């Protein structure tokens, strides 16, 4: 087992934060306040979540898991929907996509007996899936605005040649989904070689043998990969339609001017 980290040791971590703050001050980066605030906020959030998880783990699994998943999906929805401001129904659509993908992945885990329906297993693993879906959706929406803005003339060219919105968008959809998936594809290529992934690291620190730890890591890595690709695909296929009207015309979206 790893030794327990004492409160005194935790307090000494303040020195880790003082280094970037000092560097920011010396090089006039203007980040000192931001570093201090982010560090403090991160610590407070983690302390609170530690107590919250302890409480949720003590509840019957269905209640504890449902509450936490709902919170996670809602927060992820609000965060991801910032990137999609200007689109209609953006929050509702993102909520349904994240929740749907999470439920699918959870069903696979439980259906294939990979994990137990216990809060201490479902919640941390779901958190990783939901978090990565949120990032992929944000990337897809950002990229979509960029592509429709930059590629407007090509879309008009395709429409003018007789293409339907779906056919014309094919030119961009591939690029959007690819852009949203690239961080994960790259991460999978070097997984374990450059850095040991978080879940595996945690299990090893907790005393689980590495060969056992990698099993969980493989499950979570492939689950994340699936959820990221599904989220990016769903979001792209749903949202591109908002750039067209039913007369196969490109509509002017305010947010495309801003990106």
């Amino acid at each position, binding site marked *: 087992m790893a030794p327990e980290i004492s409160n005194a040791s935790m307090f000494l971590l303040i020195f880790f934060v003082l280094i970037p703050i000092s560097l920011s001050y010396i090089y006039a980066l203007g980040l000192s306040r931001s570093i201090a605030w982010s560090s403090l906020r991160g610590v407070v959030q983690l302390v609170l979540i530690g107590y919250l998880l302890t409480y949720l783990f003590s509840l019957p699994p269905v209640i504890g898991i449902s509450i936490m998943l709902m919170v996670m999906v809602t927060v992820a929805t609000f965060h991801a929907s910032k990137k999609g401001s200007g689109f209609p129904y953006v929050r509702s659509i993102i909520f349904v996509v994240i929740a749907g993908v999470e439920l699918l992945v959870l069903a696979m885990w439980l259906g294939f007996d990979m994990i137990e329906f216990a809060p201490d297993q479902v919640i941390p693993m779901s958190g990783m899936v939901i978090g990565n879906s949120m990032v992929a959706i944000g990337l897809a929406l950002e990229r979509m605005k960029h592509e429709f803005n930059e590629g407007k003339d090509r879309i008009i060219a395709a429409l003018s*040649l007789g293409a339907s919105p779906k056919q014309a968008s094919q030119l961009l959809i591939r690029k959007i989904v690819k852009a949203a998936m690239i961080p994960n594809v790259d991460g999978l290529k070097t997984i374990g070689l450059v850095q040991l992934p978080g879940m595996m690291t945690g299990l090893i620190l907790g005393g689980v043998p590495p060969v056992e730890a990698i099993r969980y890591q493989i499950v979570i890595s492939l689950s994340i990969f699936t959820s990221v690709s599904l989220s990016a695909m769903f979001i792209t296929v749903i949202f591109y339609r908002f750039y067209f009207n039913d007369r196969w015309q490109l509509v002017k979206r305010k947010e495309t001017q801003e990106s």
Partner: protein
Amino acid sequence: MVDLIDVQAVSSERLTNIHLSIEEGTIVNLIGPSGGGKSSLLMLLNRLEDPLEGEILYKGEPITNIELGKLRRMIGLVQQTAALFEGTVEDNLKYGPSLTGAWGSAMGRDLLDQVSLPQTYLQKYVDELSGGEKQRVAFARALANKPRILLLDEVTSALDVRNVECIEQRLYELIESKKVEGMFMVTHDISQAKRMGSHTVFMSEGKIVEQGETKEILTHPETTRLKQFLKE
């Protein structure tokens, strides 16, 4: 005789009360300052935009009655920017016909021939092309759909004199052979307007300021605005 295109009191976001009719076999020059509404008018003609008021007829039939894909293949647009798709020249040329399964492998060579590009260009990636070559590929891409009407938005602006002559010659042939029934040609080159269109429309601030036979309105403009524009 029914007009080929009849624009009846059309107004849109950028255009006001446009009246314009052309007969079959006509090339119409659209001239005027930037932002005057020339490109917007082209967008209305193949329904990339719709008017807020008024109606556009093709041979007496409202263009809104024609199925959209068919209308846009029939009224081909070549934009000011070449806006080529990623990939090879052939990928671009076959885009339109492939939508209806009408692409044949021999078509690519014929289309390149029509815009005086070597046949070896078929497999060339569009990133490797010069500005003028891109413009010619965009023109050939529109021709691939065998349009009945052509909407040309400054299609020769990036070409050298020899290639301008070649494209103009091709446009004449298309009209004379009746493969194309009519053309609307936006140009900033007054000498090109004199060479090409029998009819000229001068647009400014979203309105038609003056229109008539090219020779007549370019040599004896009536309005101050056109006189000023021709001086500039």
